[in-house]
Each structure stands twice: as structure tokens, then as C-alpha cells.
């Protein structure tokens, strides 16, 4: 379970950056990019919190 959480958290950071890069290269609309970044943010806090919370405890 912990390994899955870590993978999801790391992937969410990748997903967070991809829309900004695609928008920069003109391959995505800003509105779409904003929604994907919000989803990535939710995923990061959902998966990253249990992982990093324990690590910093």
C-alpha cells in the first residue's frame, strides 16, 4: 500500500508539471491545464501526506 501511495504521489507531481509544459509548447488550453493541475494537487496531498507525514514524524 505504501509503495502504491509513493508511486501515485510521484506521478501526481509529474501530472502537475505536464500541463504547464504542454501549455508552454502550445499543445494545451490554459483552462484544461488549470483543471489538471487541480486534480494533480488533490492527488498529491491525498497520496503524499501519509507518505511524508510518517517520514517527517
Amino acid at each position, binding site marked *: 500500500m505504501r509503495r502504491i501511495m509513493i508511486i501515485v504521489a510521484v506521478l501526481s*507531481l509529474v501530472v*502537475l*508539471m505536464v*500541463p*504547464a*509544459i504542454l*501549455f*508552454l509548447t*502550445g499543445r494545451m488550453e*490554459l*483552462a484544461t*491545464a*488549470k*483543471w489538471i*493541475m*487541480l486534480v*494533480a*494537487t488533490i492527488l*498529491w*496531498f491525498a497520496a*503524499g*501526506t501519509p507518505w*511524508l*507525514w510518517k*517520514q*517527517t*514524524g
Partner: protein
Amino acid sequence: MSTEQQSQQTQGGSEFEREPVPQNRLLGFRSFVGMYAGEHTAGTELMIGPLFVAAGVSAFDVVVGLIVGNLLAVASWVVMCAPIATRARLTLYYQLEKICGRQLVTLYNLANGVMFCFLAGAMVTVSATALGVWFHFPMPALNDLYPNSVGWVIAVLAVGIMISLVAAYGYQIVAKVANVAAPWMVLVFIAFGLIGLRQFIDATGTKVGSLSDVWALAQTHIWRGGDPHLGKVKFTFWHVMFFAWFCNMAMHIGMSDLSVLRFAKKSWYGVASGTGMFLGHYLAWLAASILYAFQLHLNPSNTDVLPGPLAYQAAGLAGLICVIIAGWTTANPTIYRAGLAFQAVIPRSSRFTVTLITGLIATLAGMFPAIAMQLLEFVALYGLILMPMGAVIFVDFWLIRRFGLQSSYAERSGTGFNWAAGAAWLVTLAIAWGLVRFAGVPIFFVSLPGWFVAATLYVGLSLVYQRKVRPVLEQAKPGPAVAEA
């Protein structure tokens, strides 16, 4: 456990407050990399970047000035702070107490606490601008000094009270949230820059086929140079370089980070500060300044520096969350530290009450946009005020014995107020104030000569002081000890 948490525990009085950190509690390099990256990617970066643009900075000056200034800042951590931290392994406060005496340290704590309060106030201001996007109340303009609407006051009050309560009740939880948020926050800041860059390309119709095209865009549209906005100081290469070098002067040359780096196994771990400098004080500042420059490009009359709306137009709700969390997670430890500094002044007061009152003072300060809108000057002042004590520590640790004098003189003489250190501090500040007030020297430039003034004064005054105030052990031989002359 992160170094920051350990540092907080130490300041809270639970471990190694008055003894060197033992070998088995030292931390590896990675602990410092994460801590510095998180600590220096804060809500206030979203104010500082735009303020560079408002100061009429040019592309070369900001891009190269920040590289040089940040390298000098990292060098200051490595050369000035870390070697003392890893040799003495004491907190800043205990190291200072041995040199200056308890009463002078109390005065230092008071100054430190007041500056932390105002800094936290600016962070509350940043978070409150995010609420303005949702509730549409009038927000402060670039040159506003006072709160300009009831909605603004209520927003700052709401954010400030929440931050103060959390700081008073459970600092550790916020420290954990900050650690979780740090990697995400850094990437959101980078995304701000990428999105802002594309918006500029579209708005100007620039054809970008190479890096030189991007550089041309930066020079002609983003950091155009020219006159600063009304009421702002014009920033040149030197302003940017010295600002980047000295904006954390309190921590490196001022030695605040002795409390953190005393946990480092090696003194070169000071290079970990480079993550904070080049993620937070380079990428984040440049990204935030791109967003503000784009706002000006769309509407040159809209000079408001409001991180909430800036972040929202670039990254939507993710951007707004970033502003709130960046302000919250950095305001919290700042209020906590200010509370600890004040608690040291009034030792019998409860930490909860002091932190809560401190938070409310910071909230009150946050209502006045003058601090956030003049953040460049405030940060320079903050470093300047605490810098002379860093010079005193440096001289006391490395040089003073070469002049036939003794180090840690307050401890040896039993005095509560080492006048040589106290006068070095206050006279340096008076000279710096005179240079700024009467000679028209910008505040960003007085800290460097100020360090040499403080160091020289401390040595010179100690030559007189140590002759008058004899060490307790020395006095004990002929008769009863009288510590103070």
C-alpha cells in the same frame, strides 16, 4: 525528524539548548537539502518577484544579479555560519549568551521577535490576497500604507487568527504540512513561470525558435528596465545582487542558522542552502515576476502586487491553494519563533499565550499593506538589524584571541551585558541609519560595510572593556569577585 523541527524543539527548550549537539544526533546532507528548499520557497516569494519588476529591473540585471547574489548567499552559509555551527554545535542564543550576557541576549531576542512579527504579518497579507479572489473585496494597491476596505481587514483577521491559533496549539502539525507541501509548492512556482512565459509569447506574437528569442522577449517585454513605479527605488544589477545576498543575512552572516547547522555532520553541508536559493530565490522570484509583468502588459495601470489574483489567473485553484499554503506554512513557524523570542524576554509567561498574542500582533501588522508592499526594504532592514551580532560571533570565535583578548567574555566575567558587544551592535546600526538617512545610501548597500564596522568596533571596544571588567576566575584569586566595573 527534520532539522527545522529539531531546531524548534531546541528553541522550545527540550533538547541541547545549553549543550553541544552530541555526535549520535547529527544529521546527513539530505535533511538540510529538503529543509532549505522548503523554507525558502515561501509565500513572500510571490511578493518579491513582482516588486523587482515594479523597481524597473532589466533582464540581465535580474537574471545574472540573482545568480551572483544567491551564490554569495550560499558561500556565506558555507564560509561564515556552518564552520562555527559544526565546531561549537550550540544554538545561536546560547552562543550569544556566552559572548554577550543574558541581558544583551534578551534585548537581541526582543529585536528578533519584533522583526519576526512584521515578517509574519507580510505572510498573512500574502495569504489574505487569495481570499480576495473568492470574496471580491477591494484589496490594497502598490503604494497603500493603510488597510483600504472592511473586507480586507476581515480577511486578514480571519487568516491571521487561524494561523495564530494553529501556531499556539500545534506547531508540529504545520511543520508536517509544510514538509508535505514543499515539493508540490516548488513545482507550482515553476509552473507559474512556464505559463506566464507562454502568455507573453501569445500576447506579444513573438516567434520563439531558440533561447535567444526567449532572451529577446525577456528584455523587451518582461524585465524591460526603465523607470521604477512611483515610490519605488530603481533596481540595478548591484541592487539585485546585494538584495539576493543579504535578504537572508540574519540567517547566514547574522548566524541565526547556527541553531540549524549545528546538527550537520560536516560544515560543507551549508551548500544545501543552494536548494533554497536557486529554487525559491531564483526560479520562484523569476516566475512570480513574469506573472506580474504579464499583468502590467495587459493593463499598465494595474500596478497592484496581489499574489492571490496573480496565481489564480496563471494556475487557477491550484495556484490559489499554493498562495494560501505558502503563506500559512511560512507564517506559522515565523510566529512560533517570534513567540519563543518574546517568551525568552518574559520567561514566566506561558508559550501558548505569548504565541497567540504574537500572532495577533502579526495579524494587526498584516492589515497594513505597507510592510508587504515595501518588502524589499523591510527584508534588507531585518538582515541589517541582526547582522552586527553575527559579526560579533564571527570575531569572537575566530579572531579575538589573536588580539590577546578572551572569547565568550560574558561567561568568563559573569556579566549580564557585555558592553563591547552591545555598543558594537548599536553603534553599527546608528552608523548604518546615518548612511541611509543623511548620505542617501540605499539600505541594500549598508550591510556589507556595516559588518566590518561591527567587527572592528567589537575588537576595539573589547580591548578597553576586557581591561576594565575582569574574568571571575582571575578576580577570585586576590579577593571577592566583582564582575562589573
